[in-house]
C-alpha cells in the first residue's frame, strides 16, 4: 500500500471539489474548475497553486557559500542578501541532479527550494559533500509554499512591485511570510513561504482576495508554454545542462561538479538539443513519442493560449534550428511540427 503525503491544505482542496492525484509521493490537486479555465485565469488575472510539496533545504555556516559554489552551476557571487538565483545541482558528467532556486537569506545562510521528487536525493547529495562549517538541514516539513501568479497577482494581494529574483520578509493579512518574486508560469507574481501551521489562514486570505485556485494540470501547461524545463521529463541526471539549453545558468568560469564535462560539451557543441516545437496539425504530443531522425518528446501537451499541441524534446543538433520541420509519431500517425524559439508563448504586448 502506498501512503501519499498531504499538504496542510488538503482539506481545503477537497472542500473546493478538487480532483486529487498522486504526484511525487504526494496527494495534490490536479484541477479545481478545469485546467483550461485555471490556465486562462493565470494568464489574464491570477491564480494560486499549493506547491507545499516542494522541498526546502537550509545551508548555514561560515563555509555555506563555498560549499554551494562548488556544487551549484550558477555563480552565487552575483547574488546579494535578499536575492535569489535559478541554478542546477550537477553531477560529475554534467548531468542535472536537480534544478532549484537558491535564496541568499544572510551572507552565510541560504535556502534552496527544490523539487519534491528529488528532495531526498538532493539532501543526501549535499550531506555527503558537507564540509566543516556548512550545516545542511532539510526544513521542508516546517513550511508551506503558495505560488500566486498572474498579471494581477500583486494588485490582488496588495503587494508592491518588486524586482524578479528578490525576496523580502512581509505579512499578508497579518500572516508572516517570505515573499519571493519567483514562479513557474512565465507571469509576474510571488511565491509565499509560510510556516505550515499558517498555511490554511494564508490560503483563505489569498482566496478571499479573488485569486483562482489552480492545480498541477494548469501548472504544467503554463510552464510548458514558456518552456521552463520539468525535472524528470526534460532534464535529468542523464541530460547535461548545455544540451538542455541551460548554459545560461552555468558559470563555466568557476569550478563546480561536472564543469569540465560541460566545458567540453560547450566547446564541441552538443550532439542533441532540447527544442520547443508547435504542432502544425491536429493532435497532442506526449512525453516519450519519437521524433523522426532520432529525437524524442520529453514534455507535450495542449497549449490553451495557442489552442494546439506543443512540446519540448531532444533532437539531433542538425534539427534544432527554429523553423525546422519535425515529424512526430503520435501513436502511429506521423504529424508535422515546427521548431520554434523559446518561449512558445509570449504575451502580445511584450513581443
Amino acid at each position, binding site marked *: 500500500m502506498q501512503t501519499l503525503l498531504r499538504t496542510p491544505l488538503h482539506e481545503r482542496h477537497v472542500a473546493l471539489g478538487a480532483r486529487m492525484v498522486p504526484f511525487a509521493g504526494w496527494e495534490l490537486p490536479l484541477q479545481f474548475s478545469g485546467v483550461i479555465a485555471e490556465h486562462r485565469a493565470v494568464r489574464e488575472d491570477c491564480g494560486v497553486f499549493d506547491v507545499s510539496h516542494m522541498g526546502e533545504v537550509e545551508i548555514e555556516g561560515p563555509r555555506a557559500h563555498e560549499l554551494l559554489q562548488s556544487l551549484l552551476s550558477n555563480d552565487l557571487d552575483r547574488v546579494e542578501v535578499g536575492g535569489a538565483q535559478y541554478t542546477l545541482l550537477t553531477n560529475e558528467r554534467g548531468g542535472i541532479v536537480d534544478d532549484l532556486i537558491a535564496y541568499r537569506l544572510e551572507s552565510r545562510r541560504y535556502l534552496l527550494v527544490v523539487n519534491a521528487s528529488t528532495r531526498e536525493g538532493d539532501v543526501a547529495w549535499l550531506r555527503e559533500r558537507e564540509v566543516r562549517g556548512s550545516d545542511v538541514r532539510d526544513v521542508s516539513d516546517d513550511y508551506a509554499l503558495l505560488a500566486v501568479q498572474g498579471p494581477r497577482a500583486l494588485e490582488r494581494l496588495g503587494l508592491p512591485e518588486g524586482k524578479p529574483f528578490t525576496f523580502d520578509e512581509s505579512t499578508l493579512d497579518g500572516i508572516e511570510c517570505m515573499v519571493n518574486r519567483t514562479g513557474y508560469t512565465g507571469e509576474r507574481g510571488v511565491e509565499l513561504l509560510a510556516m505550515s501551521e499558517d498555511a490554511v489562514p494564508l490560503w483563505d486570505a489569498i482566496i478571499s482576495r479573488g485569486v483562482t485556485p489552480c492545480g498541477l494540470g494548469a501548472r504544467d*501547461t503554463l510552464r510548458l508554454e514558456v518552456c521552463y524545463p520539468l525535472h524528470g521529463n526534460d532534464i535529468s541526471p542523464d541530460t547535461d545542462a548545455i544540451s538542455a539549453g541551460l548554459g545560461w545558468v552555468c558559470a563555466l568560469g568557476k569550478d563546480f561538479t561536472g564543469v569540465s564535462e560541460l566545458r567540453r560539451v560547450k566547446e564541441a557543441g552538443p550532439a542533441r538539443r532540447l527544442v520547443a516545437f508547435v504542432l502544425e496539425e*491536429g493532435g497532442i504530443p506526449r512525453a516519450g513519442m519519437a521524433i523522426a531522425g532520432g529525437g524524442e518528446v520529453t514534455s507535450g501537451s495542449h497549449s490553451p493560449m495557442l489552442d494546439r499541441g506543443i512540446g519540448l524534446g531532444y533532437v539531433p543538433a542538425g534539427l534544432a534550428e527554429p523553423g525546422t520541420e519535425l515529424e512526430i509519431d503520435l501513436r502511429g*500517425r506521423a504529424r508535422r511540427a515546427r521548431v520554434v524559439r523559446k518561449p512558445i508563448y509570449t504575451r502580445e504586448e511584450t513581443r
Partner: protein
Amino acid sequence: MTAAESYPEDLRYHAEHDWARIDGDEATLGITWHAVDALGELVHYEPPEEGAAIERDTSYGEVESVKAVSEVIAPLSGEVLQVNPKVVDAPETVNDDPYGEGWLIRIRLRDPAEAEALMDAAGYRALIDEQ
C-alpha cells in the same frame, strides 16, 4: 458550460462508457458523461474516416484532454456514415453536451441484433456505481 451528470433513458450503453442512439438500421454514437468527466475538457478528437468499417468492442477513434488520451470503443459494428464536424473543430462540445451536439459518429449498423448486448440507462448506472 460543462453538462450536469445524466444518462438518458432513450440510449443504449456499453461498459466502455459509450452510448448509442439507435434509429432503425442506423445509430449515432458518443461517450457518456461519466467518461467525459473522467477525462476533463476535451481538446482533440481523432475521428475515423467516413466509409470506414468499425467493429463492436474495438477502438474507432481517440479523444484527448489536456492530461489524458482515451480510445473510443464502438458499442456496435457498422460503417461510418458521418463524423461530427463540430466536435472535430471544437472538441469541448462533448463536455458541453455529450448526448446532443457532442455526438461523435453516425453509423449504418451491420447487425441490429448486436444492440441486445447493450445496457439500458439503469444497467449502466449500476455499473458505474460499482466502479
